């Protein structure tokens, strides 16, 4: 009984801090409709800022806390709102989900860069009032914890009054429902939105400062994950209700502490050692499933800005061939280390490919792609394990690959089944939670599991020794163990899968899944069983993810269990896939290469430049290299609001002029092939080859544009002369429109003739 009370007290203390973090999320969501996944990162950044002031520069605690919670964090929130979140209006749910992910990774990257770049010093925050404590119901409670409890009560009360009892609060809640209506009524949505982001960030900062002593020494992603633990509370409040969120936070805190109690602080059942860390994810998953069911949704945003074109089969096959040929040519002139970066990129591209089908076409979300890679590796490992397992096998057998794909497909179906009625953000959170659960309970598990089923004994080997070694295939009489051969295998696989996915998109099945994305309600009224269709898409895409994951693991050869599965890699990949162009197979390719280039190649390039020009070392290495490594990928994600259809689309638009000048294009391609041949023979260095060929990508379309100006001018005129009615009104009114209108109305032409 005494224990029970003690753990209850501690649970409520923990719950209070969660409540502060979670109500912050509720404030931003209920006013802007954006679920700020970056909340945890804002908390982390603020905790580090506080540490800097308080423990590195020895500022007095009240000043440090004031500067952190009332100045730094709100400013960060304001900047986010003004610079990033505003651009998200009228974009799809996916974009509104991904942009905060980019912000999260960007802030964490910046924090790592600022505080953890080189020195290995431990940043240790202390509690307020150190170890001073009082006894509550027999349990020693630190002043620090009491402060947390008091603040959480004050904050929850204040927010309740603010949101439900004041005019500003009502306006704030109205903003998310209908901006334009609010504007008509004289509200100022921009200001309201800014205020809510500032408040939300400030609460994140406070929660970060209060939570950070739990960690001992500060670590960026660990602290962010600690704040993530509060997210289920916000979901329990349906992201809108402050009181429910508060209750949810208490349930969270108590469950963690009660688990400590009954498990003897994790000593009792070793297999469940990591269950404590999975509790928030389990609760999140549970809360999502128990949420009142939304009715079938129609198109929420009638016109999103994303629009994807579908290539014809001929184009798909052609470009698949071009990809394989270009890769074969490229790898033959590349250095060994460059081939490794490229192979890493192609492996990631393969993983991103599963998202094209699932997210780009079907509009469903999977934030746990790497979890499927982990599951695939474990499944393949079971295949002909023998006494020593897969590692001693010389080749990855086809049977192992098929088993991995089947298992992944089943697992995909299993998470999809309960999650089927969830959409968008909620589905994203559910898959993310699923990823964390698998990570904590399966992937971090090192002991083999023994089962007795139907009298037979089964052993499932997980990541024994904390890592698994995956051999490369030896198929069709070709040994793909070598880096170059394996790169080509993956490229061919990508081309084949890509063509397959485009074939799906062009089939009746593909039209159905796209229709399901565009309007579930309309599909249902046409007699489509959405549940079955969704389940199927999830299973197919999970199988692809499994295959891709296995290739990715084989590319790595040895895979540790603690590096890539904690959820952040999956978030990063999802984000980059959207940036690349989630509706395009080419987008997936760009995404993988891009990720590899930004986080590995660019820093290498800057390193080389830095050592070539020592006097500029600080610029190349300290600034540019670190920048592209830590915040580069995030930055492109943040830019998504401006161009939600992704890079692939931009590139295609950029190269459109080439179509009009086939002769010039052929000459250009021929020139590059000649240059390649010269490089291959050793006449040109591959450094110059890449400089010239990459440079020409940017320059040649421009040149063609200006040389053949007349051809493009015609096109513009054709657009201007279009029937206004047919254009619809999804763009700004242009002066040329007025001329069209004038002509149509029979008014005299010219600037003075228009109707005012």
């Amino acid at each position, binding site marked *: 009984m005494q224990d029970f009370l003690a753990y209850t007290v501690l649970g409520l203390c923990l719950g209070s801090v969660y409540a502060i973090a979670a109500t912050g999320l509720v404030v931003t969501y209920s006013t802007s409709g954006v679920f700020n996944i970056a909340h945890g990162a804002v908390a982390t950044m603020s905790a580090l800022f506080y540490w800097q002031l308080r423990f590195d520069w020895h500022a007095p605690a009240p000043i440090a806390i004031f500067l952190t919670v009332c100045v730094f964090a709100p400013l960060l929130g304001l900047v986010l709102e003004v610079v990033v979140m505003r651009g998200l209006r009228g974009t799809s749910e996916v974009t509104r989900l991904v942009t905060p992910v980019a912000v999260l990774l960007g802030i964490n990257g910046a924090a790592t860069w600022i505080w953890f770049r080189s020195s290995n010093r431990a940043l240790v925050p202390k509690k307020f009032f150190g170890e001073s404590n009082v006894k509550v119901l027999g349990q020693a409670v630190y002043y620090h914890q009491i402060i947390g409890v008091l603040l959480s009560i004050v904050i929850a009360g204040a927010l309740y009054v603010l949101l439900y009892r004041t005019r500003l609060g009502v306006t704030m809640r109205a903003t998310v429902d209908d901006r334009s209506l609010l504007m008509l009524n004289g509200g100022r949505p921009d200001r309201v939105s800014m205020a809510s982001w500032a408040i939300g960030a400030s609460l994140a900062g406070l929660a970060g400062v209060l939570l950070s002593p739990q960690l001992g020494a500060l670590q960026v992603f660990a602290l962010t994950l600690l704040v993530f633990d509060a997210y289920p509370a916000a979901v329990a409040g349906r992201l809108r209700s402050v009181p429910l969120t508060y209750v949810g936070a208490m349930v969270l805190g108590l469950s963690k502490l009660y688990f400590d109690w009954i498990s003897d602080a994790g000593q009792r059942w070793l297999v469940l050692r990591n269950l404590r860390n999975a509790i928030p994810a389990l609760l999140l998953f549970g809360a999502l499933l128990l949420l009142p069911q939304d009715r079938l949704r129609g198109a929420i945003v009638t016109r999103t800005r994303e629009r994807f074109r579908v290539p014809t089969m001929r184009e798909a096959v052609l470009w698949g061939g071009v990809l394989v040929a270009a890769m074969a040519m490229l790898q033959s002139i590349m250095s060994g280390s460059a081939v490794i970066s490229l192979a890493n990129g192609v492996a990631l591209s393969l993983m991103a490919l599963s998202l094209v089908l699932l997210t780009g076409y079907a509009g469903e979300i999977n934030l746990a792609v790497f979890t499927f890679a982990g599951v695939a590796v474990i499944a393949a490992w079971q295949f002909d394990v023998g006494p020593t397992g897969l590692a001693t096998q010389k080749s990855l057998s086809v049977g192992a690959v098929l088993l991995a794909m089947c298992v992944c497909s089943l697992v995909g179906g299993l998470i999809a089944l309960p999650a089927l009625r969830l959409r968008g953000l909620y589905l994203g959170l559910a898959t993310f939670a699923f990823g964390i659960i698998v990570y904590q309970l399966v992937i971090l598990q090192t002991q083999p599991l023994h089962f007795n089923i139907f009298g037979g004994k089964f052993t499932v080997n997980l990541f024994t020794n904390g890592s698994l070694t995956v051999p490369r295939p030896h198929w069709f009489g070709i040994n793909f163990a070598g880096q170059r051969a394996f790169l080509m295998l993956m490229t061919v696989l990508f081309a084949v899968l890509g063509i397959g996915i485009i074939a799906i998109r062009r089939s009746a099945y593909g039209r159905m899944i*796209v*229709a399901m994305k565009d309007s579930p309600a309309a599909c249902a009224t*046409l*007699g*489509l069983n959405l549940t079955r269709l969704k389940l199927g898409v999830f299973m197919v895409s999970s199988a692809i993810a499994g295959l891709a994951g296995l290739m990715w693991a084989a590319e790595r050869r040895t895979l540790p269990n603690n590096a890539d599965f904690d959820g952040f890699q999956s978030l990063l990949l999802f984000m980059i896939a959207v940036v690349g162009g989630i509706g395009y197979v080419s987008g997936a390719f760009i995404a993988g290469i891009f990720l590899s280039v930004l986080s590995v190649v660019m820093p290498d390039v800057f390193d080389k430049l830095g050592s070539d020009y020592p006097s500029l070392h600080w610029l190349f290495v300290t600034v540019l290299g670190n920048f592209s490594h830590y915040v580069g990928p995030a930055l492109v994600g943040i830019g998504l609001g401006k161009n939600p259809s992704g890079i692939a689309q931009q590139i295609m638009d950029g190269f459109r002029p080439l179509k009009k000048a086939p002769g010039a294009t052929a000459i250009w391609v021929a020139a590059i092939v000649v240059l390649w041949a010269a490089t291959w023979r050793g006449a040109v260095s591959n450094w110059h080859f890449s400089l010239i060929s990459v440079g020409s990508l940017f320059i040649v379309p421009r040149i063609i544009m200006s040389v053949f100006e007349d051809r493009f001018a015609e096109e513009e005129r054709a657009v201007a002369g279009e029937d206004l*009615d047919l254009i*619809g009104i*999804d763009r700004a009114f242009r002066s040329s429109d007025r001329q069209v209108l004038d002509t149509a109305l029979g008014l005299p032409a010219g600037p003075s003739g228009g109707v005012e």
Partner: protein
Amino acid sequence: MTLLECRNVGMKFGGAAALTAVSISAEAGVITGLIGPNGAGKTTMFNCITGLLEPTSGEVMLDGADITKLAPFRRARLGVARTFQRLELFTSLSVRDNIRVAGEIRSRWSKDKGKSDTQAEAEHIIELLGLSGLADRDVAEIPTGMARRVEMGRALMTRPRILLLDEPASGQDEQETEEFGELLLHVRDEGTAILLVEHDVSLVMKVCSFIQVLDFGCLIASGSPAEIQTNPAVLEAYLGEDHSA
């Protein structure tokens, strides 16, 4: 024969009642009108019939069978199709594919699978609806009036027994509406019953053989076009109290 019958359907959003014990019906082989001022509850009624909303009380019967609790897709398979007042087109697809995919969905569930040639049927419907010139356009860029026809074509591809049209003529000009009226009669003659919600009163009067009027979620009148035109309750609902004074 009564094909569709709603008995005492009530629908509440929170505390506000959008429908109060409304009983309406639609006969096979005719066009039935459902009219009423803005906010009367017409769209809500459609949502209850197609299953996008579950009514808080009352029953929806199709051909004598109770379908109140069925999932939307099951009702569609029984022959209920609709268009949406707020367009629900598949914006990633072209006009042609919007119509075609409906046939493809149908061939997944219909019993005469395989026998039908969806593509030819889609072309026929495109022709019928006068969309041939627009067939390859993105649906996002065609005018609203035409978009409503696409929705209707999509619904027709399921070969419904009853077609619910929610303000299909809005966005079409006078001449287009004229043609559209002919089209409705044609569809009716092919054997599809229609329940028509429409603000264009002259169109309703022209094509409907029976009209029901909603106001503030209650059925206030029903009868032939001639009766409705002179019904004082209807005039009052449409023209306000000034008229009755």
